[in-house]
């Protein structure tokens, strides 16, 4: 069993409460009199929660049973700084711990991957931290042709020894890695068919998903691909910004699903969104929200057991005005590591919670 993880980073801290809306809770309206999503604009998933109507394009996946939503994901002692909190997620560290390696890379400690393709991870945005580490060969590539051209300019140095100089040894090794990746990718990517349905290009995510789709459909044997959508840091006048982003995200993921189904690859992929944090329960004075804590994650894929997983954090039991997480994100990662790569990992948790989104 092996699946490619397609990570979708939502940069800036997506407001979970207006994404998966606890529409039936009167407390929600009290906390968000101006920016709460009205009941009639919620797509009800059960008697308590529902999706923001802008996420309508995801309903096809929901009805097909291959969209799971993990509720209330966060971690203890939450950090509200963007850069620190995303680092905690990307390295799967505890809040008080600074790690230099990414969680995907760490997952492969002691695992020997087949070297054939020359690359293990493709990052189509610019944050490669989740796959950073000596275990994985990661290529950051927003545009395939551009990468191949650049690699061409830096061909392997034939027969050049490092003369015992470790700095030079590292440089030559990285150079070789670039060339090996380019060699592994060149023919496959150039031969890859364009996605059946083109992605909207309003945000960079569209181009990134195009690269991701080609990598996946051309069967480059990677363990993960990463893309990102920015702009979720909605401190003021939140609604129009977040709605535009959610609509775009949902449309793009629905297109991705259709493309991968058409290419016969939907069962081999696990799509997972994540964000550095959710936002405060109470709206602020500028019709926006400030940095908060727990939020839902979307997980999609042919092998996914759809539905709601984990518990929605209570709006009646806030901690300093923030939601208390119900699922540690490292439990989600542990489930992914098992379901995608067959690896048992706990990321420092004594007992990762069992989450049923992968059969």
């Amino acid at each position, binding site marked *: 069993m092996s699946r490619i993880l397609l990570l979708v980073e939502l940069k800036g801290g997506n407001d979970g409460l207006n994404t998966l809306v606890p529409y039936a809770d009167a407390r929600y309206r009290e906390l968000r009199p101006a920016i709460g999503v009205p009941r009639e604009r919620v797509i009800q998933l059960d008697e308590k929660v529902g999706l923001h109507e802008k996420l309508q394009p995801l309903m096809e996946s929901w009805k097909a049973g291959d969209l799971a939503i993990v509720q209330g994901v966060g971690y203890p002692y939450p950090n509200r700084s963007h850069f620190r909190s995303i680092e905690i997620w990307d390295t799967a560290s505890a809040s008080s711990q*600074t790690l230099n390696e990414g969680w995907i890379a760490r997952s492969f400690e002691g695992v020997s991957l087949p070297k054939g393709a020359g690359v293990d991870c493709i990052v189509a945005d610019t944050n490669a931290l989740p796959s950073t580490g000596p275990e994985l060969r990661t290529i950051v590539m927003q545009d395939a042709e551009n990468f191949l051209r650049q690699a061409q*300019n830096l061909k392997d140095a034939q027969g050049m020894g490092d003369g015992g100089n470790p*700095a*030079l040894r590292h440089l030559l090794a*990285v*150079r070789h890695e670039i060339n090996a990746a380019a060699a592994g990718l060149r023919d496959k990517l150039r031969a890859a068919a364009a996605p059946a349905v083109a992605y909207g290009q309003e945000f960079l995510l569209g181009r990134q998903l195009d690269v991701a789709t080609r990598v996946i459909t051309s069967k480059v044997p990677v363990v993960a691909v990463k893309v990102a959508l920015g702009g979720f840091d909605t401190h003021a006048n939140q609604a129009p910004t977040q709605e535009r982003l959610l609509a775009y995200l949902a449309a793009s993921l629905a297109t991705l699903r259709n493309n991968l189904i058409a290419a016969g690859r939907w069962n081999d992929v696990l799509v997972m969104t994540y964000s550095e944090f959710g936002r405060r329960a109470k709206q602020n004075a500028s019709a926006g929200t400030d940095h908060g804590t727990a939020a839902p994650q979307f997980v999609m894929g042919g092998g996914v057991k759809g539905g709601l997983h984990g518990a929605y954090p209570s709006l009646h039991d806030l901690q300093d005005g923030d939601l208390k997480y119900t699922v540690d994100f490292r439990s989600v990662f542990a489930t992914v590591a098992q379901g995608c790569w067959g690896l048992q990992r706990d990321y420092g948790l004594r007992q990762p919670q069992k989450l049923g989104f992968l059969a």
Partner: protein
Amino acid sequence: MAVHLGRRGFVGGIAALSTGLWSASSVRAAAAMDFDEARHLLSRTSFGATPAEINGLEQLDYAAAVDRLLGNVRRTAGTPAPEWVNQGPAEVRRQQQTAEAQRKDGVDGKRLEIVRPIQEQGRELKNWWIEEMLATDQPLVERMVLFWHNHFTSSMLKVRYAPALFRQNALFRREALGNYATLLKEVARDPAMLIYLDGMRSVARQPNENFARELLELFTLGEGHYAEADIKAAARAFTGWSVNRETGQFIERQGQHDDGEKTFLGKTGRFGGEEILAILLAHPRTAETVVQKMWLEFVSLKPDPAEVKRLAADFRRGGYEIKPLVRAMLLSPAFRDPANRGALIKSPIDLIVGSVHMLGLPVPEKTGLVRMLQGLGQVPFDPPNVKGWLGGESWITTYTLLLRQQFLRRMIEATTVASMEGGMMMAPRPNRRADRKQQIAGDDSTMQMQMAERRPVEGRSLRNAGVEVRLGPTLMGVDSAALVRTLLPRQPIDSVDASGTPGTAVATAMLDTAYQLK
């Protein structure tokens, strides 16, 4: 400026290059320094070295050269401070709120971009430091400021109050080659640090352990030399050290201080912060932590444990004077070992600032350079986390190596100094560096600025301008072989054309993988 390569026995074009002139094994007369050794010394103590700078040093004997680099240390920046450095945090916050309140939606419903004072000050602060790195006459001091910034990290992303970071930088500058004990004591009371590591929120009834943890792990003892209980004790001792929210200055809030008894590293007493620092400064590990880091910065990727202990013992015995430590390190056999030439990887700042300096490129607006540094992973005032930049091999990944090549290519292409036509290229934006230089010395950098405002011939670059290439004053008149030798710390990895025009030599050398080394 007459660039003159002194005693160089290697001018011989491509043939000389291929016969291993970089092997640098020649045993020379006792006091003499050669071009390569002078180059090595400068490559580690400045940001990029020009042929003239190397020649200026190679005429000295080695110890004298080291002493010249360490003599007459500048303790303040030459670049004028941004105008907002005396604003208090309350005032900056008010300005920020005013700016946010004026924010409007554009016709398409998207919010219009506004200038937000906190972010704008951060941008100016970064530009200010880059400007100082390029303008300084004492690059070694600048390197040390950067070293201390990476040791005692604080980040604009968290601090969000640029005046405090400016003042912290001034502290690093004052003590760049001064005294580590002083530096440590001042850092513990430094407002930017108190904000960055949450010291200002640390109060008796709820001590915050963030600063105490990093103090032990990163600033002094290093992991494995203390227990969790020591962190808790130290955190209690520092409670009450805080920042005045109106002025941004350090204050001690007696009422928030936990003056109970603490046991710290085996000693018991009603310790405050001062006593904790004194205990740490008496511990041999503190000097070793600093020396180990400094070795990685100046000497090689593989510290020699015996040498580290020796240098650290002297450092501690000498009362933590930094200048003698740097001097001892630069004079150490390991530093001078030819095997260690080109044994370090250039940091992004080495690469970008060094290339600009070495090429003599006029860059009136520094934001573009900071953006390059961001791509490559080293924005001054924004280290990635409390551990600072990891440095060494971690600078080079498949991503950053390609990006480095791309930026170098851009410099080679876009900043062409081929024969200039008339016409103004850039608006004659007031330039502080030029102004200052004009004020303090009538040197030739103003000439350089004027050159900048002429337009390069379209389509001509270092690479294809042929014989018409006109290098900037820093490289003008130097032959190709000497240029390659200035640019690279060792033999080229690829084919560098040292027999071609100076423009091609510079272009191919800069794109050679060996250019990533120093």
